[in-house]
């Protein structure tokens, strides 16, 4: 459970964005988490109430979108999901691949006024 410190940091960032855009009420925060990120969505959700306590985001909803993982095979260059295929290329069975997506952790948007 190492999510709390990072979520507190996100809350600060969102507060700064809200102030910079003269927003007074935030309804929803939307985060995007890659399948290969070290942030576990379930834990981000469970520490969210503690992280927003006493901040501008106190009464907000949290929505998390999961971004799928992708890898490119070093032998045949085909792109596949390394989690679904256990790091093994489904086309040529090679085990060497480079991760191209899935490690993201993004603040996507806020719904606010």
């Amino acid at each position, binding site marked *: 459970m*190492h999510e709390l410190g990072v979520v507190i940091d996100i809350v600060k*960032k969102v507060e700064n*964005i809200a102030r910079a855009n003269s927003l007074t*009420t935030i309804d929803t925060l939307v985060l995007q988490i890659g399948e290969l990120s070290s942030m576990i969505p379930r834990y981000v959700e469970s520490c969210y109430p503690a992280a927003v306590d006493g901040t501008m985001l106190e009464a907000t909803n949290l929505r998390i979108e999961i971004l799928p993982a992708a890898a490119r095979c070093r032998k045949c260059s085909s792109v596949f999901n390394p989690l679904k295929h256990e790091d093994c290329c489904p086309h040529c069975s090679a085990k060497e691949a480079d*991760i191209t997506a899935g490690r993201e952790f*993004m*603040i996507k948007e*806020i*719904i*606010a006024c």
Partner: protein
Amino acid sequence: MKDFKVIEIKKSVYESNDKEAESLRQELKDQELFLLNLMSSPGSGKTSTVLRTIEALGEEMRIGVLEADLDSSVDAGTVAETGTKVIQLHSGGMCHLDALMTREGIEALGTEGLDLAILENIGNLICTAEYDTGAAKNAMILSVPEGHDKPLKYPIMFSMVDVLLVNKIDAMDFFDFDMSKLTEYVTRLNKDIKIIPISAKTGEGIDQWADWLRNEVKNWKQNK
């Protein structure tokens, strides 16, 4: 009814840290100070490896050490006994160091006259890998008792480090540790990685590690 709208942000959570790290790296380059970020699980032998490193290189370069821990100054005390410049950083419960905390540590340590600063990161293989500290190079230690399958469990860490020290090789006989399997798993994730087996206890392999580090420090100063 309030007029809510969607405000697109599309920013990586790590973006501000990445920027901070990049500017710290540039400043350290200008000062010709090589910062090594050393990561591992708790108990893999970070501090004893740091001591061996000081022993091997302490006479030819000036070394400073940043010890990061959640609390306490046990490790800093151990390193300070060698007469090396050392500072203890407390991450205040955070399980990683970010570029800002590293900068504060470097400033508190004082960079004047230093050639090499070793950041002993918090014992953790997860989020330490995702926060760029601004270091010139990243190293990690995997100790033999932890097992050769660690790269399968912590792929992010193994894919981002420049060098992997396999520590406690003196204990190889007591564990089912397969070095060739480890090499296979690691190079699958990171084809450019350098793997150096060492024993911080007996000193085996430390000369190879010192050679690597000496060379990197030299390159860092030359390619200004």
